[in-house]
């Protein structure tokens, strides 16, 4: 066993810290402070992506030859910690965490050349077209169809819960190309090099927090080139499963959870417990925080075992366990935030949440984001394969750990 605690790492930490102190614009910082979701405010997020890319730090988990940093596990966590410590907006996962790694693994050379630079550089934003109104947890039952026509496909149907589609300039999606076999067969994985094809319409959906984050996307005889296909026709389920690994695997998620607790603890210093002391000194608060912090620590250990190559990560249900643990911890942290903000989280202040808004929030930054963040976080156990589906998958592997 071995964990590196050398002084070189402390130099690295200082280097990262110095850059992160200096590089982000005020608007980027504001976007980070006003984060109420996994998905940061779009414009500032992409701006920040480009800045990080210039530094070569946009994609720490990518292979070095494709623009990754080549950092050790220790370095990646230090980067994530320093990043979160400053409440900087996380880069959007659809491009860097999903379609990018997928193309690296399964894309044609042409696709890689065409798309990877825009993904890595933060020039493109890719929406993920998976779910449909009647295909949520049962993704394989999707019916949005693509009919081959010459070198093209003609797409008809609709997608829903397409995060930030109204900001996207590209899209990857699953379409039905064959109805004859099992539902998992006959699915094809497509890249759309633009989202303004004729017959395509994107409608934002207002979420329970009052903001449009998700969209519906409608396809009415939309003609797209077949060259956007990843893998074989009708083999999209295999492709998607490969991608889910990236989607669920999420590296270095624990620093975000830890930073959430830190913000709670900070706020607790000036929040009365109602029982004679400030919350931070209140034994009940301390116990509840301790319990949550310890559980986050176990998740961090689990995550670090995995990224450092421990066999635990080879368990076929590893991505599902990772997704389940992380999403439920996100929700618990979000509840802690509303607990420390109390009644101050009740005002509806959507206008003040907008980056650059000239609206004074009624309370602190944490008061402002607490309730939208809590509400938005209800989605973490629903999206990317509901936790019910994840537990179904995990259950199938129990007792077969070898």
């Amino acid at each position, binding site marked *: 066993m071995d964990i590196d605690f050398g002084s070189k790492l402390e130099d690295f930490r200082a280097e990262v810290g110095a850059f992160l102190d200096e590089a982000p614009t005020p608007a980027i910082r504001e976007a980070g402070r006003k984060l109420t979701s996994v998905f940061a405010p779009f414009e500032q997020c992409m701006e920040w992506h480009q800045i990080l890319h210039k530094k070569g730090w946009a994609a720490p988990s990518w292979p070095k030859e494709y623009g990754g940093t080549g950092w050790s596990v220790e370095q990646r966590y230090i980067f994530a910690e320093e990043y979160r410590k400053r409440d900087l907006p996380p880069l959007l996962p659809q491009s860097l965490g999903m379609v990018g790694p997928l193309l690296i693994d399964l894309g044609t050379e042409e696709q890689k050349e065409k798309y990877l630079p825009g993904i890595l550089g933060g020039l493109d934003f890719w929406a993920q077209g998976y779910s449909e109104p009647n295909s949520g947890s049962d993704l394989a039952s999707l019916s949005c169809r693509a009919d081959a026509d010459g070198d093209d496909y003609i797409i008809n149907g609709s997608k829903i819960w397409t995060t930030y589609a109204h900001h996207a300039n590209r899209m990857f999606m699953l379409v039905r190309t064959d109805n004859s076999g099992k539902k998992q067969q006959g699915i094809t994985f497509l890249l759309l090099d633009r989202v303004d094809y004729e017959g395509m319409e994107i409608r934002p959906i207002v979420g*329970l927090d009052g903001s449009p984050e998700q969209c519906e996307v409608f396809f009415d005889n939309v003609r797209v080139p077949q060259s956007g296909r990843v893998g074989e026709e009708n083999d999209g389920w295999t492709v998607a499963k490969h991608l889910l690994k990236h989607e669920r695997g999420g590296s270095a998620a624990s620093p975000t959870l830890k930073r959430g607790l830190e913000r709670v603890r900070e706020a607790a210093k000036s929040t009365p417990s*109602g029982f004679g002391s400030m919350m931070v000194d209140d034994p009940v608060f301390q116990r509840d925080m301790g319990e949550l912090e310890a559980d986050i620590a176990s998740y961090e250990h689990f995550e670090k075992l995995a990224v450092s190559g421990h066999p635990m990560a080879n368990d076929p249900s590893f991505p599902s366990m990772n997704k389940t643990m992380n999403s439920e911890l996100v929700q618990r942290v979000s509840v802690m935030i509303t*607990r420390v903000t*109390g*009644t101050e989280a009740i*005002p509806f202040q959507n206008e003040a949440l907008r980056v650059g808004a000239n609206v004074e929030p009624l309370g602190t930054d944490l008061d402002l984001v607490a309730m939208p963040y809590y509400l938005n976080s209800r989605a973490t156990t*629903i999206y990317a394969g509901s936790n*019910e589906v994840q537990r179904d998958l995990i259950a199938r592997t129990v007792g077969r750990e070898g």
Partner: protein
Amino acid sequence: MDFTFTDEQQMLRDSVSGFLTKNYDFDQRNEIVRSDTGWSRDIWRQFAELGLLGLPFPENQGGFGGGATETVAIAEPFGAHLLAEPYIACISLGGAAVAAAGNSDWLEKVMNGDAIAAFAYEEGRGTADPIQVTMQATPTDEGFILTGEKRMVLAGGEADILVVAAELDDELGLFLVDPSADGLSVTSYPTMDGRRAANIRFEAVLANSIMEKPGEAIRTLLDNAILAICAESVGAMGALMKQTAEYAGTRKQFGVSIGSFQVVAHRMADMKIAYNKARATLLYSAALIEAGEATQKDIAILKGQTGKLGREIGEAAIQTHGGVGMTDELSVSHYHKRILANDALLGSSEYHLRKVGTLS
């Protein structure tokens, strides 16, 4: 023991429920919430006509002398319809405060629907108990001077009269303040559950004392308001349970209704258990209050359990609905937000459940 409604109480409940079903479905409600005022003067006038605004006040003050059970009978339907109108703000809190102080002028206007009375009590981050109020009332020759801030004053922005809770000689007193008084600045906002509230800064504001050393009176007022708040939440919980069961019975995934998945079914069973616990405690507490036998522990149990069980039900409802439960479009999330906001008012479940433990 008897925890059932009388025929009259059942009729009252049915009439409120019927009125709201007709005039206040979810679409109508949303239109009202999205309007400039955020609630409907028209509905309010009809409440006055139905006698609802005078319901809880003593007959010798011109009210209908309704008790705890009547409060439950109307507030459950309020919750089921996500009422935006300031019934709790203006009747259960503001009106109850002027009634307790015997101020018949304002009470009459409140009961007629001609005035909105707001109760300025909360000072931020959950003023769960009167002893936590820190605003001071300083006696001067012209009257009392108030300085400080009140937050989350429900209907504070549209109030015609403010009843302010402030300390006087180490005890709580109630003070009347004209919303247009000098030194008062009101920041009004919508709440996340579709009501209106305000933060109100007082800088040497002149106020009339209407009740000094109220003793038990303020506790009674708060207890009754807690009952109304909890009844509203239980109404919302019942609606959530019904809607979730309906959705689970019709929404199909993997070729079958999602309710046929045992994990979904058990989650609904847990919702039902939680609902029955909460409703049993609501009815039992109403009976205790009506009998004059409710202790501070009983009230803490009511508020604590309602907040805790309500959160469980709301979160379960959203999870069962999946994506659509995350939208503004469906009522599911709105119920949950109302339940959460009610939990935050007058001390959260965290506060109250712990208080139960200290009162033993």
